[in-house]
């Protein structure tokens, strides 16, 4: 197994597509190892400040038991690290959340499985240093000093931390959030109310949800309702089976309907016959 390991004298190696493989293993006694694949971050279309092109290292295949801190420890020999962003899939940065305040209780689900990371160094040279990492031995993730909890230990810890939640802390966070929210909503409605009922240059008056004369809401459902009501009104006026052609038409429709049904049934039967569904026993 793993013939690759024997092919390379040093455990780390380079891959034609520009990645460097860095071996990592869980603990000293582990017999096998995974590889982190690292490369400088280079995506043309992306030009945001959080992943500066020259200083960002793109890391693939991070084992599920390797937390952020551990990655920090592995890569810090290459230079000072500014930030680490762990994600499930490589891809553009998410939209910045409207809530800047980091929430303790309302965190979105943390990523799971094998992860990717964008590591931003303080200096551009660190990226090249990281790409040159060629350890003789696989890097150990869970050391004596900084053991990583896995398995039962981890689950017990997870359960305990989830259970030991302070109700008042949660309440405080909710209150703070709601205050901010209410303020935002108030501002918004004030902005809308300002425009309400004021004719613009051509004399059009804007009607809003909270205005004095509430109008039909502009939703899809409301549109459909209006169309439906119109159709019904029209249908009521129409006379059915009044003219001879209508009679003829309805008869034709009836026969067509029967034919269609017949064809459907025929197809069904043919299929069932093929599947030998008519063999009763």
């Amino acid at each position, binding site marked *: 197994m793993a013939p690759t390991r024997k092919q390379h004298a040093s455990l780390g190696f380079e891959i034609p597509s520009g990645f460097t493989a860095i071996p990592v293993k869980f603990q000293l006694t582990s017999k096998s190892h995974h590889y982190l694949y690292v490369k400088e971050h280079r995506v043309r279309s992306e030009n945001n400040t959080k992943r500066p092109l020259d200083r960002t290292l793109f890391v693939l295949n991070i*084992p599920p038991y390797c937390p952020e801190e551990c990655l920090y420890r592995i890569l810090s020999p290459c230079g000072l690290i500014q930030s680490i962003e762990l994600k499930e899939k490589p891809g553009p940065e998410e939209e910045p959340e409207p809530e800047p305040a980091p929430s303790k209780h309302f965190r979105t689900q943390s990523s799971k499985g094998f992860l990717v990371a964008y590591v931003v160094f303080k200096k551009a040279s660190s990226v090249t240093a990281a790409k040159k990492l060629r350890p003789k031995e696989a890097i150990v993730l869970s050391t004596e000093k900084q053991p990583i909890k*896995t398995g039962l230990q981890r689950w017990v810890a997870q*359960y305990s931390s989830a259970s030991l939640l302070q109700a008042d802390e949660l309440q405080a966070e909710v209150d703070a959030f709601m205050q901010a929210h209410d303020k935002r909503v108030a501002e918004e409605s004030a902005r809308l109310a300002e425009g309400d009922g004021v004719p613009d240059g051509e004399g059009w008056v804007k009607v809003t949800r909270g205005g004095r004369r509430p109008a039909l809401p502009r939703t*899809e459902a409301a549109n459909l309702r209006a169309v439906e009501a119109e159709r019904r009104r029209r249908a009521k006026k129409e006379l059915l089976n009044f003219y001879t052609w209508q009679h003829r038409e309805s008869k034709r429709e009836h026969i067509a309907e029967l*034919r269609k049904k017949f064809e459907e049934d025929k197809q069904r039967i043919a299929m069932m016959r093929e599947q030998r*569904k008519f063999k*009763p*026993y």
Partner: protein
Amino acid sequence: MKMKMKRKVQETAVMEMEKENEEELSDLSEEEDGDEGGGGPGGPLKRSRVQGKSLGDGVLKPVKLTKQELYKPPTNEELNRLQETESLFHSSLLRMQMEELLKEVTLSERRRKTIDSLVQEVTSLLASVPETTDTELSDQSWVPRGVKVPLLQVPYSVKGRFRMAPPLSVKLVGSYPLGTCSKPDVNVDLAVTMPAVLHPKDYLNQRYHRKRALYLTGLAHHLSSSHAFGSLRFTYHHGNHLRPLLLLTPQGKEERSVTLRLHVCPPAGFFKPSRFHPRKNNVRTAWFLGQETPQQDISEPPTPHYNNSVLSDMLLESHKSFLSASAADFPGFREGVAVIKVWLRQRELHQGYGCFSGFLASMLVAYLLSKHKINSMMSAYQVLRNVLQFLATTDLTESGITLVKGTDSTLPALSEFHDAFQVVFVDPSGHVNLCGDMTASKYRQVQHEARLSMQVWDNPKLDGFHALLMTPKPLVRTFDHIFHLPAVVKLQAACKKMELLSELMDHAGNYVAAALPFIMSLLQRGLGDRVRLLAHSLPQSPEWTIDSEPPKHKDKGLLSFGLLLNPEFSTNTLERGPPADSAQALEFRKLWGERAELRRFQDGSICEAVVWQGGSAFQKRLIPEQIIKHLLQLHANIPESSVRYVGALLDEVIKVGREGGSTGEEASVQVIQSYDDLSRKLWNLDGLPLTVTSVQGAHPALRYTQVFPPVPMKPDYSFFRVEKSHRSLLPLEGKPCPAYVPAIKVICHMEGSGKWPQDREAIRHIKAAFHIRLGELLGQQHRLICRPAPTHLDVYKDGLVFRVQVAYHRELQILRETMTPEGMVRYRDNEEALRLELETVHRPYLTSTLHGLQQQHSVFGATARLAKRWVGAHLLSASLSEESVDLLAASLFLQPAPHTAPSSPQVGFLRFLHLLVSFDWRNDPLIVNLNGDITATEITEIRNDFIASRSSLPAMFIATPKDKKNSVWTKEGPSVQILQRLIVLAAESLRVLETQLTDPTQPQDVKMVLRPPLDIYDVLIHLNPKQVPLHAQAVDTPRIVFSRGALPSGAAGGSGNMPVVDFNPVACYLSELRDAFEELALFFCDPFGGTVIAVLWKPQAFAPQPFRTAHVKARLVQVKGSEAQTVPNVEAILEDFETLGAGLVREVEVRSERWTV
């Protein structure tokens, strides 16, 4: 013992784990089911196998007709056909179905030719039977070696003389000349008229029967010398041992295609029919008992069955000509009878002693024709319908019918027939009762089936054709409880005990036939209202080679009985009898023997009564067993040990608690009571800013379908880390994993109000605030321990933990809201909204409807639990959601056709397996009509929608009233492959179970079907039982039991702290594994105490792939020149299995070398 699965099927299933919905199953080659003649015991299974797979393009597609085709002017012929369809059949589909069915069962021209030539050959051979010299009947030394007389000659000595001679005539009789002969049992009857060896007084003391049997022996010997036949065997005509038949089959590969049956009969009119009046005696007691001189003072009892058997032989030909006359100019006759025969056969009514034979069906059609209830223009469907209608409404046990036209005072009256027989249907001659051997309870079964079938035909929502004509109804799947008498020889003692000498004489010593009617009426009396139907299996006719002795009565196999329970009364523990001083009291005491006792009732009356033991619902369901065993012991001398009762063998695996006296119904009720109380408290809370509008359960335990319902738990504090400030218990690492306490989910809808924010984040926060507030109020007002969290509130009540989740009905809409560029608000589904809808709308709806279903059908819960247990035991519960299994179980109760709704978990489970196996998942949506809310037109709509978008719908499609188009519960799985595997497993389990349940001689280990075959998996991760919290629930109860910090229910212990809730390391481990290695492998585990996680590599993940940043998870890069390819880093992955599950994993066992790339 493990079940052997078809390795091939599994591998195919595994090979294509990716979602390529269409073609996976097509590569299974169509099994050519070559032998047309043999149905055989494997019949139903074989059929279902065929259904399980399909041909290359076996998917229905919507029909597209061009406008021209649709609107072209109709031809006369077309109009006629369309019109005829409307008047003669239900629908055009039914018409075509019937036509196809008839094509399947009618004989091919080729086969008819074979038969004709065979008949000719036999006829000419018979003409050359050599004559023998005249000998005494009791001197049978002339019988050649190699042939044995096919009759039990008891007593042996009979007066009369016999010799062999060529027959007077050989004629075709029965179904073949009539054209009603149908596959698969192609029997051609030949009537061989005996030559002048009979004496006019031969009607007496079985003399005729002896001569008949000897003549048959002679014929058999003669035919055996010709080598023209595949086999020569004897059998009894419909199990009547006085009427042996000779069976001939052609040689070569045609052997199984047809059976020639030789009947020997006296010349027409040889005996005077009036000798066989049902009140006359033709078997003398003295002769029967072997006494020398007749006792003078004894009046001889009538022997109607004996008389009937002689007459039936004599009238074979006249019956045939009568039927031929009826069938002339009536095409529907032939087809109608063929369809009725299919109907009878599916219900196992068509053969055996006292069966409803095809001959009887023909006679009945002829009767209805003569009574103008059927006319000769009718189609097969109408004939079937009219016959069923007639059977459903006419009770032949009370008011018999006769084919005699006009009145003839010399013939026996109907009332005389009624005195002698249980079921009366008199033939055209007026002397024979065609239903002579049928028991009243068999007729009632026929009647019950007919009534049920009529209901199905009349229900536009059902596919009557499939349910009634294509679905087999074996005893074990039809009846709620069954029991066997494996040793029928015990009935001999029963006859003695019940003093049935005259019946024994009448049945010529056949004690089974003699005792059966009496046992049935005894049990019927004892069970009374508890059963809707009590039926027995028909003693089958054995077949034996001509050189062996005829089988004795005791060798005819076991006798089985079936009970359809009446759930309203079947579980009553008290049987209230007549008042102590009334006349019936004596009778009551006689029936029940020592079990009868006097009781004073609440209304002050003192009555006779019987009290049966039954504490739990499980025990109460088995009260019929107590009754039957008691009555059989008391009145028929049949010891309890020889009655094998099959009513609750499977219930073993869902039993809860140590004592094993309950299958968990009581625990469920307790949970629901506690929940009801909680919901009342939530409703009435003071001090909430908004009122509660509804409280709905959303957990299987709240619809009675949790496999192991939660039991109140009292924690042992020394076992946990006690966190005083939070009033919580936490698990300790060193100890065994604490007992699993499920969180019972409850959805609490809050009133809508303008104060709710219109933003999803804000709603989440407000809900969290509600959880806190609810917790505070419940604590203050009801002293309940609560623990709030952002997403829910845990409430510890009565030893159970409820997880209350606040919901706001507008949240769904808000989640779906998107704004178009024009500024119009649109609603679009997204994952988050769907998940919320599932949780707050669908699941509560399902829970409350199924809770309602349980109130109507008390065994629904247990059935669903057995089903889930089975799915879990086969490690597949991750792919088949609990809700979908519940729905499958519910469909058995809502659409039981052709059965009645199950009244025992056992039969429910068997039908669940059968549903999985036989349903055409590919081409049919399973419509579960909860509350009957779906109308017939909606059903058509669902079908059409389904066909139109089949490829985008889940492999298993279940429609409910609230979910007609999406099948929300099966969206996530099972995939086509898993479904296929489920079907294979279900077919095998069903086969194993049914053989075990119907045959008491088989090893009785029902748990066999719950032990999964593990040979297909690549890696097995063995877990440390210490850390598996549900270890004690394992199918095979483990010997080692770990203490898990729960005090016995009676012990005094604090309940001031929240126990460890919903903490299951196995589940945590599985989810981590799936998160990490989803792309590489599938993980399977039994959630109920399984200590093995089975891993299956995905083959396509193991093919080397080019290096792509999105696909390098847990993969190893191999550099070849300038190309980089990746393969899974198996060695590291296997080590990861151990790392991720540190403390839980005991061993990772690699079983196959398939991963070596």
